[in-house]
């Protein structure tokens, strides 16, 4: 069925193409703005905070302590994390030293089919991000086999760890610098804040289906 429909659709489109002479179009791309390093961090922070994201600027050595404070303030029971990553190892070694008052660390190490019921009960998820975009402020989430997609979506709190050096000025710059068009992954998501809606009387409300809270740790090297 699909094959014959396909042929008929294409036959009509081809005929239509011949009927209406194709215009040659020159595309004039809009020049994207570029920002200095400090401006990029500042812009990202301002724009994401305006979308009710909690942004902390910290450093590569002290970020776990910062995370510890954030977690303790919230009285969470469980945190899902990516094992076998630098992030995962840093968490494991910190928790081994002293896990008092901290949520239980739960590794995302099996396929979702064996983990889904558990995942839907976990309070928070932590992931790295591939980078961010200063204008408009958004994180670039590039899930991998080690950092699956649902850990940043299902738990009520998503904590994202971002290297300050991987912030791009614009979406276009991020695409071009990373040569996205030659290597799109299974899934890439831009995230600009916690889940929200304005479907009732245009009143903004946070935490509909995705995380209620988004916390970003920007690591200054």
């Amino acid at each position: 069925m699909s094959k014959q429909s396909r042929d008929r659709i294409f036959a009509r489109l081809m005929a239509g193409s011949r009927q209406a002479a194709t215009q040659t179009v020159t595309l004039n791309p809009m020049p994207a703005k570029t920002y200095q390093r400090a401006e990029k961090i500042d812009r990202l922070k301002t724009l994401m905070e305006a979308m009710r994201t909690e942004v902390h600027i910290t450093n590569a050595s002290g970020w776990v302590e910062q995370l510890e404070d954030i977690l303790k303030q919230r009285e969470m029971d469980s945190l899902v994390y990516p094992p076998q990553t630098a992030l995962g190892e840093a968490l494991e070694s910190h928790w081994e030293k002293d896990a008092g008052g901290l949520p239980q660390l739960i590794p995302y190490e099996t396929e979702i089919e064996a983990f889904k019921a558990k995942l839907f009960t976990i309070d928070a998820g932590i992931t790295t991000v591939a980078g961010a975009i200063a204008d408009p402020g958004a994180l670039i989430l590039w899930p991998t086999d080690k950092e699956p997609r649902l850990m940043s979506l299902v738990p009520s709190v998503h904590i994202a760890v971002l290297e300050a050096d991987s912030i791009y000025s614009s979406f276009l710059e991020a695409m071009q610098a990373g040569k996205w068009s030659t290597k799109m992954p299974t899934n890439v998501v831009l995230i600009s804040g916690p889940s929200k809606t304005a479907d009732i009387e245009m009143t903004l409300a946070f935490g509909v289906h995705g995380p209620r809270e988004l916390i970003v740790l920007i690591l200054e090297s």
Partner: protein
Amino acid sequence: MAIHQPVDFENNVSRALKDTQLIRNIQSAMDTLVLKRKTVFSDAAEIEKLRALGNSIKTNALGKLPELLQQLEEKCTANGIQVHWAETIPEANQLVLDIMKSHGATRLVKGKSMVSEEMELNAYLQAHGIEALETDLGEFIIQLNNETPAHIIVPAIHKNRDQISKIFHDNIPDAPYTENVDELNAIARQTLRKKFEKADVGLSGVNFAVAETGTLCLVENEGNGRMCTTAPPVHIALMGLEKVIEKLEELPPMLRLLIGSATGQLITTYVNMITSPRKPGEKDGPKEVHLVILDNGRSKIYADPQRRQTLYCIRCGTCLSHCPVYNRIGGHAYGYIYPGPIGKILNPQVEGLEAAGVLATASSLCNACEEVCPVRIPIPELIRRIRNESYSNDPDSAVAGHGYKRNWIESLTWKMWAVANTYPLLNAIGLRILGFLGAKLPKVGPLKHWTRYRKAPEFAPRSLHELVKQIGVDHE
């Protein structure tokens, strides 16, 4: 070719105009949307450049449509996405059902998709024993109340919070009555999370399909789109065949135009770019991704260079928000899933003029829609085209139902008018007679209809021509 009954537009409009609550709800929301759009599009020069770029991206994509669709199909297939083609709505529904059946699936969670509304997919699947659940909050509300969307972007905008509180309380087991928006959201969240966890298949629309990489781009704020496209083991994406663009780098400007126009945001909370099903080694994401590409009349519209511009539409809904007619009657009065200015040109072409041509009369041609359209569709020009087609007896016209409004009174009147204007003497005599008898014209035929809500035209006792001759023209 019409799938639906002809719309009873006149009665729909009368009913809507009497519903003061509806009009208040709609107008306050539209004011907000108009204002928010203005805030993110504050630099007029930049926005005009951006709209020109949006227009040329669509001109380019539609100019190469057959090639780009072929490329999209090849890329998607190479990436592991299964591509299906549906010429008609029944075929598209059947395709979705077949995919569900092949997995023994009975539970579907849906992200927002106007194509699925066009297909009336929910009713179709429910008739086949499948639970098709809307998860976008607005869509969820109206599904509970057995309604269709009243707006492309904010589907439940015709309801205020009191009405929504009642809908929740009456339809969701154990839901307490509350008018607090955060509590209403929490009820929806709790109800739907279980559904996301247990669903067999997730369904979504597509905002842009990128031919270069075989990527499906989907924007949303709630996270339900991510849920539907990630949590269940199978993902079905639905798109109209006009949604393809050529290059990935065209996404940033198109997203800025779509999002700014639709909700007045710089960027939505989530921008999903989906390029393949779960790869070996990856721990989650659907194992199968299906893309259903729907024609439903689009390829016929495509053949006409002027009407082709209808296919530029990116479904941002801003023409609805800015339309003085939409603002006074809301979305349901139009009788089709695409209301407002875009609906006035799209529905008559898809459903045929006899069924939907009347929609094109609901315009004062004020041009507000054209001024804000992010891809610069000349909507008023196309409304005039639909109006002309309604009277056209051109045998080459491809618009179904063309000439359905032709009648001898109007044809004769215009013929006489043409003759009278060819001969000055006849014109002068004619005007004299009209000046004398014009007020007494019998209210029959089109004039009877016209004067139901409007005053009949008044003819001056002396024509402009005469006055100019007598007094001259003041050039000051």
